[in-house]
């Protein structure tokens, strides 16, 4: 087990955690015997490194974290209840606002759930376009994450600005396709709302061709930087067993050494037709989480290459596919895809009316956040900030 070594952290294990039958959680720590008094600090909700209105209630012994309580819900918007009161089509734009960096994948996961529920087939071209959009979204998300993480590490904005420079290019593509940079609202049941033009595809091709060079430069700036390595290696280790048991998904799970990727496991859409690899980490620390995402972006570029090459013609949306006033027959469906942050899934129960009776989102940010305390205990405040950064949360999705 890769628990932080108590001797190394200067703290002693005091108790096992209630209801932790497998003994996987990081035990709570007691401060060093006779150390100074504990200091309780509230990091957030207004804190530059909590990525939104999130609060970490930490108890410190010096700078070491003895207890950490994540407090969230400041951005709760009733998303799931709204979904039950809104028509199937009407919920689509709301999904944009879950993980607002990745509206493309949110749309897709929701569309997938509804398509499963109502048995709507998806056109071939739309499947490819969905892959293109999802992988662009993955590039966007991982690039931003790396920038934010380095900002949390104390960079004075440089990696963040480079990341945003590239992000802008992807957002420009999204905007010229869907009309909106972030709230794309592009998927429909059975396909996509809009059909990418030849110019758009050429622009995307240019972006994809240039992205490798950007990643090379970005990695030259950071990946080999001794300070980055010192700050991130060995910090916030997530053991594979705990990751699996806590339901962690996405790059965070893969950084812990578990090769689980829904694009391979479920093979949804047309992913089985593409040739790509799934990078996995070994230590599950912040550096691994960062590097796994960097490597994933390289694979995304490969997928985009193939998808743009093989993109078939044909309709983007089946004109017979019903959008408005959709009334799937009673039943339930769970649609999930490998979002940039992990498994994003929508669980829908229909009773035959125009609205779902149950609408539930499996938000990867939220589930991945649950191990925050285990990752942070025994580390310092500075570490907690980058651990949170490496989990990659978007509060819109956590609080819903």
């Amino acid at each position, binding site marked *: 087990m890769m628990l932080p070594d*108590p*001797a190394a952290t*200067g703290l*002693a294990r*005091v108790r096992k955690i209630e209801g932790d039958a497998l003994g996987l959680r990081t035990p709570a720590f007691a401060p*060093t*015997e006779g150390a*100074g*008094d504990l200091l309780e600090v509230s990091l957030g909700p207004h804190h530059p490194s909590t990525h939104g209105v999130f609060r970490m209630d930490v108890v410190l012994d010096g700078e070491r974290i003895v207890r950490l309580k994540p407090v969230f819900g400041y951005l709760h918007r009733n998303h799931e209840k709204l979904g039950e009161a809104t028509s199937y089509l009407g919920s689509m734009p709301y999904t944009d606002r879950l993980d607002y960096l990745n509206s493309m994948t949110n749309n897709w996961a929701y569309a997938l759930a509804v398509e499963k529920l109502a048995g709507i087939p998806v056109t071939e071209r739309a499947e490819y376009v969905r892959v293109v959009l999802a992988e662009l979204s993955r590039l966007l998300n991982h690039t931003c994450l790396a920038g934010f993480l380095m900002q949390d590490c104390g960079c004075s904005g440089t990696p963040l600005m480079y990341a945003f420079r590239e992000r802008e290019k992807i957002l420009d593509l999204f905007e010229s396709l869907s009309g909106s940079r972030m709230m794309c609202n592009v998927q429909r049941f059975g396909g996509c709302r809009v059909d990418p033009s030849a110019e758009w595809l050429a622009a995307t091709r240019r972006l994809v061709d240039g992205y490798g060079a950007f990643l090379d430069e970005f990695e030259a700036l950071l990946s080999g930087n001794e300070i980055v390595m010192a700050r991130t290696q060995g910090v916030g280790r997530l053991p594979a067993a705990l990751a699996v048991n806590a339901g962690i998904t996405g790059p965070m799970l893969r950084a812990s050494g578990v090769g689980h990727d829904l694009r391979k496991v479920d093979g949804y859409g047309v992913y089985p037709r593409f040739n790509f690899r799934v990078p996995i980490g070994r230590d599950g620390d912040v550096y691994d989480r960062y590097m796994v995402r960097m490597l994933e972006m390289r694979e995304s570029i490969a997928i985009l290459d193939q998808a743009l090459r093989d993109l078939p013609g044909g309709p983007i949306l089946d004109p017979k596919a019903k959008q408005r006033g959709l009334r799937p027959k009673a039943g339930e469906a769970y649609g999930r895809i490998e979002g940039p942050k992990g498994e994003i899934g929508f669980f829908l129960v229909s009773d035959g009316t125009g609205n779902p009776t149950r609408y539930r989102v499996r938000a990867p940010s939220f589930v991945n956040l649950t191990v925050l305390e285990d990752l942070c205990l025994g580390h310092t405040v500075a570490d907690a900030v980058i651990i949170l950064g490496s989990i990659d949360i978007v509060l819109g999705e956590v609080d819903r």
Partner: protein
Amino acid sequence: MTTLLAVLALICLAPAVAAVLVRNLIHSALLFVLAWLGLAAFYLALGAEFVAFAQALVYVGGVSMVALFAVLLTRPGRTDLLPPPSAARAVGGLAAVSLVASMLASSLFWSRLPSMEPTAPIPLRRLGELLAGPYLVAVLLVGLILTVALIGGLLLAAPRRPAEGADA
């Protein structure tokens, strides 16, 4: 000369007295810093340039930092107010101090110190020659003491490693 020295003496003495009287530990430590700085200025006025700078460097840059660090480590986040000394302690202490003070004052008052002309300040080079020559052994010994003190301080202040894997 005497006027300048007298002013500096006041600048030095007033914070020292205040440092002993205030209840706030941090204030007290900072007032001590002020007193030491005043003393450094006093040395400067006496013509002991090198000693004055050494005094400022060591006391302001070193001792005060260590003291403040100790204050923070031992009472972080509190208001750092000290309880007033107990009456018995205060009476006893004051008695002892006034005894010493009166002895010092009387010896000072009745002593027949010749008022000599100030000697010329030593050039820095001469001081270096002294330290590297007749006092070399002493310099090395001081270096040894400092090293030992550093290591000893580290050993004393370093947290003891908790027993490995002590589940309780």
